[in-house]
């Protein structure tokens, strides 16, 4: 049993010194008010039409069957590798690369991969490939199946993300082969059943990793334009603007934000003391902590969206209308919390996978000051991107006279999230 928040990794980032936190909070506040006064008054972002198409040859290469095949085979091979290591390999992340592959290379690695290349997990997802292969073998159309209920949206993905983060941050022994195997088998069974009923579109809505990767990919410069399905280079704002307003979107973003926040405060000695002396038992106490973190993030968002609706007087879907602007904030949290883990435990996992038993994890590439700067910069830049995205959306949705007032609640929310995020880094 391990009391570490992650199942993986022996080192945490140093707590932030107050100087960095104050500097970050001040920058966030300053930019927010500047944005109110100086930003444009007519919406500029057109997610469905914006972007510069990439050369046709490159697009053909990206869309070519062999490219897709290679990606699918890679995904399947990686899944097989992890499963075999879980079944046959020794226990413990210093001897077995499986846990590191799931928690670091997949979960954290999806962030940079999706930011650079778009929704990569859609291509690599071994379950999607498996479904495709079985459908081909049976002579079925992979897309065929009963339509999904309209209100389902991304809710299954939100639930899946919560389950995965619970496994990583709360469960008694997240790095154990048994726990991981149980999760992966359940995950596979649920999604293959779903895909068998509803066709491959099930994965777009329900697979936690696909939805996670897809949301982060909205910030990628490379994306597919909804209007004509062309691969384009576009600004992250246009990508964010094209996030479909599906039910469950808010829940998904709130789970990502809330669980990352929980990861932050679960390192604090005061929280660890609470958990290890709780009469409820550790796992129950930690589970409550995770759920409360997600609930607090979601409640704050719902309150602010409600306030925005009251002020503006008209807003048909106040909850989903601004959910896209939380994606960059969540990204900032993710970078701030997982950068060190990725650059130390990522190579460590690769070394274990290549056959070195119990190698020493590499030193972080940045000095403590550098990491602190990176963390604060990630959170503040995420905040700024979120403020700009929300501003553009509000000048489109609100009547001009109320546009500035209407975005005040959201601005307050984002400042709260940002200062909250910085406070967590202090802890």
């Amino acid at each position, binding site marked *: 049993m391990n009391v570490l928040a992650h199942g993986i990794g022996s080192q945490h980032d140093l707590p932030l010194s107050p100087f960095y936190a104050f500097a970050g909070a001040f920058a966030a506040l300053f930019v927010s008010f500047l944005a109110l006064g100086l930003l444009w008054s007519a919406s500029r972002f057109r997610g469905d039409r914006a972007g510069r198409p990439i050369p046709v040859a490159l697009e053909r290469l990206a869309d070519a069957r062999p490219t897709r095949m290679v990606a699918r085979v890679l995904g399947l091979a990686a899944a097989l590798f992890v499963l075999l290591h879980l079944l046959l390999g020794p226990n413990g992340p210093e001897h077995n690369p499986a846990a590191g592959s799931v928690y670091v290379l997949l979960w954290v690695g999806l962030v940079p991969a999706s930011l650079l290349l778009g929704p990569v997990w859609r291509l690599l997802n071994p379950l999607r490939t498996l479904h495709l292969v079985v459908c081909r073998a049976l002579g079925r159309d992979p897309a065929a199946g009963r339509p999904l209920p309209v209100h389902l949206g991304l809710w299954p993905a939100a639930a899946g993300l919560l389950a995965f983060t619970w496994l990583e941050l709360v469960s008694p022994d997240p790095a154990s082969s048994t726990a991981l195997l149980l999760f992966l088998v359940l995950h596979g069974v649920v999604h293959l059943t779903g895909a068998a009923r509803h066709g491959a579109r099930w994965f777009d809505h329900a697979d936690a990793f696909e939805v996670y990767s897809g949301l982060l990919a909205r910030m990628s410069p490379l994306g597919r334009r909804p209007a004509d399905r062309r691969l384009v280079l576009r600004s992250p704002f246009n990508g964010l603007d094209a996030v479909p307003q599906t039910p469950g979107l808010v829940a998904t973003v709130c789970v990502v934000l809330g669980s990352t926040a929980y990861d932050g405060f679960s390192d604090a*000695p005061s929280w660890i003391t609470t958990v290890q002396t709780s009469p409820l038992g550790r796992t129950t106490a930690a589970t409550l902590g995770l759920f409360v973190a997600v609930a607090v993030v979601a409640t704050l968002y719902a309150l602010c969206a409600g306030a925005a609706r009251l002020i503006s007087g008209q807003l048909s879907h106040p909850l989903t209308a601004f959910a896209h602007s939380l994606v960059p904030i969540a990204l900032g949290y993710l970078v701030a919390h997982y950068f060190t883990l990725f650059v130390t435990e990522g190579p460590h996992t690769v070394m274990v996978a290549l056959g070195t038993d119990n190698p020493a994890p590499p030193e972080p590439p940045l000095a403590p000051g550098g990491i602190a700067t990176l963390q604060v910069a990630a959170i503040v830049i995420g905040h700024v991107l979120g403020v700009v995205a929300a501003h553009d959306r509000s000048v489109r949705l609100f009547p001009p006279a109320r546009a500035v007032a209407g975005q005040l609640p959201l601005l307050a929310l984002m400042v709260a999230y940002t200062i909250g995020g910085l406070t967590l880094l202090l802890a």
Partner: protein
Amino acid sequence: MNRRTARTAFRRLTVALLTAGALMGGAGACGGRATTHHRPGTSHEQAVGSVGRLLAADDGSGHRLRQVDAEGAPGLTVAVRPDSEDGWNVHLSVRNFRFTPDSVGGAALPGRGHALLLLDGHPLARLYGPWYHLPGSLVRGAGGGRTLTARLYADDHTAWAVHSTPIQTTTRLTTTPSVGTPAEPRPDRTLEIVISRGKVDPAPGRIEIKKGQRIELRVRTDHADTLHVHGYDREARLRAGRTTTVTLTADRTGLFEVETHESALLLTQLVVR
């Protein structure tokens, strides 16, 4: 795939699918307690040899003195150095004397036998060779002490003596193990932690230290356990009711957790800047 790995794999899968922890029950029973017994010729009875003259006086714990002539009599000096990890290293330089562990319990032969270490006059350990590592826990377990005496004995457990006094030498245990030598500077921070009934006292907190400083952790627990300092990968066995001391130099920056393995308690976090 050999049978064992196949069985492990099958078992993991079974456990994963059923989450039946009961299946994992191990074979906890082990054989009876090993009985101690003496090999032939290694009993503690006093065999009386014809070497020297057996005096009526004893060494203070029932072993009679065996007097030999001063000329050609065994002799010894002792050197004690604190060890960098734990306790002391004791070195006996003997002359006219051989360590004969094979024949202990047999008749006394001139210039042969073993040595006894005494802490403030109380027997501590028997030595069959010139080098001995004296663990700090042994000294603490004996209630501590200031002087270390090394005394020479014959195979029949009589003490070699000259002029009616045992052949022995005494030195002072001046320094505590982790202090005093240049290699082991005094720790910059010391933290005492007591674990009782699953509660950590003082409650887990953070210790801020500068990179390069030394920290000493003194942990006392009511359950046998293993102490683990993450990042530095230092492990130490914690024995029930004893204080275990771990000293380390903080040469990596970061936030590191100090925890116990069996009870999975966080004891403290080291913040190394």
